[in-house]
């Protein structure tokens, strides 16, 4: 690997379960890209599942014990924890916010998990690492294979953005973060109104028709805006966007399908470190 060891500074990283299984390419590409950008990721030892959803019950301390333990353990090793999966980010960031806002309940939780965490870890999404630590200008300067001419529709979904008061990553109505990253890779970023709408999430299991409608709206909107492909930041979004392409076609017979990628895959490709990625070949989407 060609990165500069002098600048080397590792960042504590929480990959989460899905990135070890279904969404491996999201993870592998992210690690390769981070290393090439001089901000290598170091996996948090002994991590567990984040819980996958932030509990909707107001007073469910037990559901927060898992993410709280992750945060507490990370704090022992550093001041920041980078995470990538949108669901993990949502759960960890909201748990962190909750622990800061409720010192009394934090004490109860600390007592239960046998830690002394004070809420002073910065949970950082991988996109924030690129924006704040690396800088999008630097990313652009490191691009060896500009994705020029590729019309990309950035898709944010819900978990990266909402609730904005607890996450604060980007404007939930008009997000720009993914688009700015993709622009720095040379892509032509496609504006379309459904970029921050819901993909249908777990309704794919309980009410598939509703999920199909949500996903179709996103796919058709991006296609209508002229996108060559759509880029996701969340394994569940990625799954839904891929799984419901047929139903989008049923709704709109002229829809010819839209490839779905993780943003890290395009990042790794543009940085020239995407060759060893598993799964489908990204070269398929490049315009000839």
């Amino acid at each position, binding site marked *: 690997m060609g990165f500069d060891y002098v600048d080397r500074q590792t960042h504590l990283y929480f990959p989460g379960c899905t990135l070890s299984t279904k969404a491996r390419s999201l993870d592998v590409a992210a690690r390769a890209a981070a290393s090439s950008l001089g901000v290598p990721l170091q996996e948090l030892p002994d991590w567990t599942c984040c819980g996958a959803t932030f509990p909707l019950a107001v007073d469910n301390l037990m559901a927060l014990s898992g993410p709280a333990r992750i945060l507490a353990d990370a704090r022992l090793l550093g001041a920041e924890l980078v995470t990538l999966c949108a669901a993990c980010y949502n759960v960890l960031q909201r748990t962190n916010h909750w622990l800061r806002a409720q010192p009394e309940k934090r004490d109860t939780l600390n007592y239960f998990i046998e830690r002394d965490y004070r809420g002073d870890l910065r949970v950082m999404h991988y996109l924030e690492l690129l924006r704040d630590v690396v800088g999008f200008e630097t990313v652009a300067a490191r691009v060896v294979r500009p994705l020029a001419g590729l019309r990309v529709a950035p898709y944010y979904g819900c978990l990266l953005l909402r609730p*904005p*008061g607890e996450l604060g990553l980007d404007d939930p*109505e*008009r997000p720009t973060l993914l688009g700015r990253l993709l622009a720095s890779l040379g892509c032509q970023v496609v504006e379309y*109104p459904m970029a921050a*709408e819901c993909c249908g999430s777990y309704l794919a299991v309980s009410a598939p028709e509703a999920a199909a409608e949500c996903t179709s709206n996103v796919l058709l909107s991006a296609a209508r805006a002229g996108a060559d492909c759509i880029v996701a930041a969340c394994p569940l979004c990625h799954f839904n966007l891929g799984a419901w392409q047929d139903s989008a076609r049923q709704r709109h017979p002229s829809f010819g399908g839209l490839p779905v990628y993780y943003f890290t895959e395009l990042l790794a490709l543009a940085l020239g470190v995407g060759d060893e990625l598993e799964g489908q070949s990204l070269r398929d989407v490049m315009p000839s």
Partner: protein
Amino acid sequence: MSSQPPVGGDRDLSAGAVGSFLSQPPAPSTKPRRRIGVFVCWCGVNIGGVVDVERVAAEAAKLRGVAHATHYRYMCSEPGQRLIQQAIADHRLDGVVVAACSPRMHETTFRSTVVAAGLNPYACEVANVREQCSWVHRGEKELATEKAIAAVRAMIEKVRQDEPLEALRIPVTPKALVIGGGIAGMQAALDIANAGREVVLVERLPSIGGHMAQLAETFPTLDCSQCILTPRMVEVGQHRRIRLITHAEVESVSGYVGSFAVRIGRRPTYVDWEKCTGCGLCQERCPTKVPASFDRGLGQRKAIYTLSPQAVPNKPAIDAEHCLYFQKGVCRVCQRQCPVGAVDFTQGETTFEETFGAIVVATGYETFPKDRLGEYGYGEHPDVIDGLAFERLLAASGPTAGEVRRPSDGKVPQEVVFIQCVGSREPERDGRMPYCSRVCCMYTAKQATLYKHKVPDGQPYVFYTDVRAAGKGYEEFYRAAEEEGVLYLRGRVARVFPEGDQLVVWGADTLSGKRVEIRADLVVLATAMVASPGSKELAQRLRIAADEHGFYTEAHPKLRPVESSTPGIYLAGCGQAPRDIADTVAHASGAAAKVLALFSRSELTQEPTVAWVDEEVCAGCGLCVPACPYEARRLDEARELDLRHQVAKVNAALCQGCGACVATCPNKACQLRNTSSSQVMAMIEALTGFTG
């Protein structure tokens, strides 16, 4: 004892002498009182049913310096007061303690009582043995009696050292400053001026009228806004007791009720309004077109402009940001065309300094900013507009001459979606307002009705949270709107996005439980009313309170709705909270009535129990200056020439006697009149039985 000089009595109290009204040290010869009378009130069973009042009086009679002690069923009654007066004469009393209800109830009563018997009012104190004793210790009669005795004992110690004081007298300059020239400020100015008092009206924009001048018709009567407003504007402009200073802002305020010293800065208009005849030739010839903010950007104005053809004053101002001369040094067409040579590119800012007895703050509202309403596409798509912009489309004087045409392509919209509570009533969203803006339900009903009148085959939809139509004729008006064919949908809108030349509106109808999708030609947002920009800064300059949203805080939410937290400064209109025109006019007239009541007296009296500084002890450290919440403190030269350093001075007119400075002063140089350190120590000793 009446021969001692009154506080501030030797000071120049003329209206111009703002800031010279300094607190004097007490006369050194104050002698402790030796013949104090104690009067214990039963308050029927309120006190007498719990506290053994006879025992309290008997115990008090034993104390040093007490010449007389007694009790009575209702001390505040006429015979009760006579009893006190008789005792003062019979026993030659020089101080009085009344053990009764809270001093907030009857301190003034009993002080007047002793004045009639020849004592100084401040030689009378009230020991609270009701609210702080009998009412809270109902089941503990013995302990309550002990506590009452201790309270009386402490108050005797206070009275022993009380100095005789005279109320401070503050002169009143009977001239009012009104800040803001919308309907609130205009109404207040007219009411005050018509009662014969002088008014200066300051407006930030080049002409008066405010937001009301932008409106088409008004609910619930559908009166034309311009038709009822412009006569008022003209009346303000021509009134011999109102001086209008537009294109100007209040820069600084000092002083206090009765004499505020105010500096007003007027930004240059680059047109000499003395010479200008308002002929309009300059505006006709100016080559530069700019989106007109008066038309919410839907129409255009020139770089030399008036807000509207009905502007008062009807004199133009040059917008230097867009003027070719100021930007590129070319053009000067207006200057060449002006028949009277009124255009003056060298005009600078002018500053006025004046003294006012009272101030009315009527700075109004603004609508919620565009950039924070992403889900509606507001600011992104031209056919998503706010309610004020729709008013301009409806107004006969507006950019479309009253025809409803949408901004993007001038098409008459056939489907119009009105969305209420945009930015209002969204406590769960950061940066959005939790409160109800109060006027949107009614103006949306009005706008939808007017749209239906102008486009009879068009369909208006209204997304609402719940229709709030509280007001005379309001509910009837809303019902009529529904009957005219306005379709009301209860629910919020999730997203507005363009598709083709239309806007797709995704919403919910929570009555049917269905999601709704409407393809609209125009979307009108009833955006929240927010405080005028700069209201928090103005509040700081005026030393009045404002809430977290920038709305000025009234002195009492029920009983003092037009008074600010600072005496002599009154609130009118939406600067205090969102309200409609009718309520604004009532509020403004209320403020004017308060000003006139103030001006009905030539001087004001104020409690003399304020802070003073012992200049020989003061080290001039200045800690008390920021500690004072009323800005009644500053550092200045010591009065005695042999004190070579600066000392703290108290402005007695501003001081409210809160004691923050006393607690802050490391040298104990700050003292409160009649709550001196030695009085407080004596009271503590009396309460605790500890005598050192």
